[in-house]
C-alpha cells in the first residue's frame, strides 16, 4: 500500500474539465516531482489532496483512509502539509501565529470552561522550530508582512514541518528565490527524504526537479502522460511530455 493513492480523479469547473481521471501513487520517503504546463491541473490536483476542492469523481486515499469529504483541517491532522506558492501567510499576524495557524494550542482561563490561545507555548515552540531550520528571523513576534520574501518562505516551511507531517506538498518553492536560497530549499527536501517524509514537488525549474526527485510525473490536459524514475528519463523527454510532443 502506498502512502498516497490517487485513483481516477476528475474535476471540472463549469464546463472546463481540469482533471480527467488522474492516477498517481506515492510511497513514504519518496520525492515525486509533478510537472506540467500552466493549466495542466497540478495545483487543482493538489488542492483536492489537501481538501480545499472536492473531486467530481475518483478517490484519494492516505495511508489507506479515504480523504473524500474531509475538510482541510482534518487532512492536515492526518499528516499532509502543503507549502503554497503564495505562501498562504497572514501578513498582519506575527511569525509564531502563522506557524501555528489553524492548530493553535489553547489553555483554560482560570480553570473555567473557556479557552484562550496559549501564546507563550506557541512562541516557545515556534522559536525552537525556526532555530532547528536555521532560519534567520528577527523574532517570532515579528509581523510576517514586514519580513523579506525569503524570510516569509521560511515561515511557511516552518509551519509545514512543525506538526511532523508524512507528506509535504511544495508548490513552486524555488520560483521566487535567489540562487543561494534555492540550494537551501533543495537541501531541505533531501533532509525530509532522509527523515522518510514524502515530498511532492511542483516546479517549472527542471534543473531543480532533476536535482532532488526520485520520480517525475508529467501532467497534461488533466491526465498523467508520463510517470518515470528520474534515472530513466531526460530533460528533453520531460519537456516533450509537458508540451505534448512525445
Amino acid at each position, binding site marked *: 500500500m502506498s502512502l498516497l493513492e490517487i485513483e481516477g480523479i476528475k474535476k471540472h469547473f463549469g464546463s472546463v474539465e481540469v482533471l480527467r481521471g488522474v492516477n498517481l501513487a506515492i510511497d513514504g520517503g519518496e520525492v515525486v516531482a509533478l510537472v506540467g504546463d500552466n493549466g495542466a491541473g497540478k495545483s487543482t490536483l493538489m488542492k483536492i489532496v489537501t481538501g480545499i476542492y472536492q473531486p467530481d469523481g475518483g478517490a484519494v486515499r492516505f495511508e489507506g483512509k479515504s480523504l473524500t469529504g474531509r475538510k482541510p483541517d482534518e487532512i492536515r491532522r492526518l499528516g499532509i502539509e*502543503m507549502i503554497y506558492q503564495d505562501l498562504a501567510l497572514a501578513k498582519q499576524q*506575527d511569525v509564531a501565529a502563522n506557524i501555528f495557524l489553524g492548530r493553535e494550542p489553547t489553555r483554560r482561563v482560570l480553570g473555567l470552561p473557556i479557552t484562550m490561545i496559549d501564546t507563550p507555548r506557541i512562541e516557545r515552540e515556534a522559536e525552537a522550530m525556526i532555530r532547528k531550520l536555521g*532560519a534567520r528571523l528577527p523574532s517570532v513576534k515579528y509581523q510576517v508582512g514586514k519580513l523579506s520574501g525569503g524570510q516569509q518562505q521560511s515561515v511557511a516551511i516552518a509551519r509545514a514541518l512543525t506538526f511532523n507531517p508524512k507528506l509535504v506538498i511544495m508548490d513552486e518553492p524555488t520560483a521566487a528565490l535567489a540562487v543561494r536560497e534555492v540550494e537551501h530549499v533543495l537541501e531541505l527536501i533531501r533532509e525530509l527524504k532522509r527523515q522518510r517524509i514524502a515530498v511532492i514537488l511542483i516546479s517549472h525549474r527542471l534543473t531543480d526537479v532533476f536535482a532532488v526527485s526520485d520520480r517525475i510525473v508529467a501532467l497534461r490536459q488533466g491526465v498523467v502522460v508520463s510517470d518515470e524514475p528520474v534515472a530513466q528519463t531526460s530533460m528533453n523527454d520531460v519537456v516533450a511530455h509537458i508540451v505534448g510532443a512525445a
Partner: protein
Amino acid sequence: MTTESPAKAAEAVKPVKGAGFAIRLESLAVLAVLLVALSILSPYFLSVSNFLNILLATAVIGVLGFGATFVIAAGGIDLSLGAVLALSGVVGALSMNALNFPWPIGILLCLATGCLCGAVNGFLNTKAAIPAFIATLGMLGVARGLALVLTNGVPVYGLPDEVLFIGQGRPFGVPTPVFIFLIVAGIAHFVLGFTRFGRYALVIGDNEGAARAMGIRVERQRVLLYTLSGGMAGLAGLLFAARVNSGDPTAGLSYELTAITAAILGGSNLFGGRASVAGTLIGALVMGVLQNGLNLLNVSSFYQQMAIGTVLVGAVWLDQLNRARVHR
C-alpha cells in the same frame, strides 16, 4: 533558510504586537490631548459626573462598535447595525408592552432578533455569495422597514421597571449602561485578542485563501461573526430602548457609520486583518469626549460633525504615514 545577512535581519526594528492588539497610538494621543485641553477650557468638564455622562453617552455606540470591529477584523462590513438596533428594541418593547411577556423573555427576544438578523446577513454573505456591503445594506432597509411596520411608525412607550434599570439605573452611582458597556468591552477584547475565534476572524480578514488552506472553516466563521455583530446590535437596541423607555423605530439612524468610525479611529484596518476592541473603545471615547466637550463649550452640533470627521481622517492619515515609513 534565508541568506539575509545577520546585520540586515537584526535591523529588525522592534517586534510589533499581534494584530489583535492593534491600537492606533495617534488616537490615544488625541484622546489624551482632548482630555487635557477640555479640562483647561471648560470648568464643567473635569468631574466624575461628567465623565460618567461621557461613558453613558458612548455606551450604545461603543457596543455597536464592538460588533463592527469583529466584522471588520474579518474584512467584512455591517451596514445594518443601526437598523437592527431599532428593530431589536422595537421587538423587545412590543413583546413586553403589547404582548405582556415577562421581562426576561423580552430581553431575550431583543437579543435574539439582533442575532437572527446577523445570521441572515452571514448566510447571505456566504451561502448566497452576496457581498457584505450589499447584503447588510439590504438588511438595513428590511430591518428599518420592519421596525416601522411593526410600530406603525410610533415609538412603543413603556417598559417594565427591570428593563428601565438596565438603561436608567445607577447602582453605586454609576449608570447601568456604563457597567454593561465596560463588561462587554472586556469580554469582547478577550475574545478578539486571545481566543481562536478572534484569531481566525483576523486571519480571514488578512488572507482568506490562507485561512482556508490552513483548515479554518471560513463560511461558518463568517456566519458566526455576523451573528455576533447582530447580537451586539440587539444589546445596543436594548440599552437604547431602556434609556429612552421606548422601542423607537427611528432609533439609531446612521449609527452604523459612527460605529465603524469608532473602530477605524481605534486602529482597525477597514480591509481586515487588524482590529482591536480596546482600540474601538478608545475610538468611541474620542468621539464621546469631543461631543461632550464641544457641547460644554457651546459649539453648534454642525461643527461637532466637522470635528469628528477631521479627527477620523487625521488619525488614519497619520497611521498611513507611519506605515509608509516602516515599509521604506
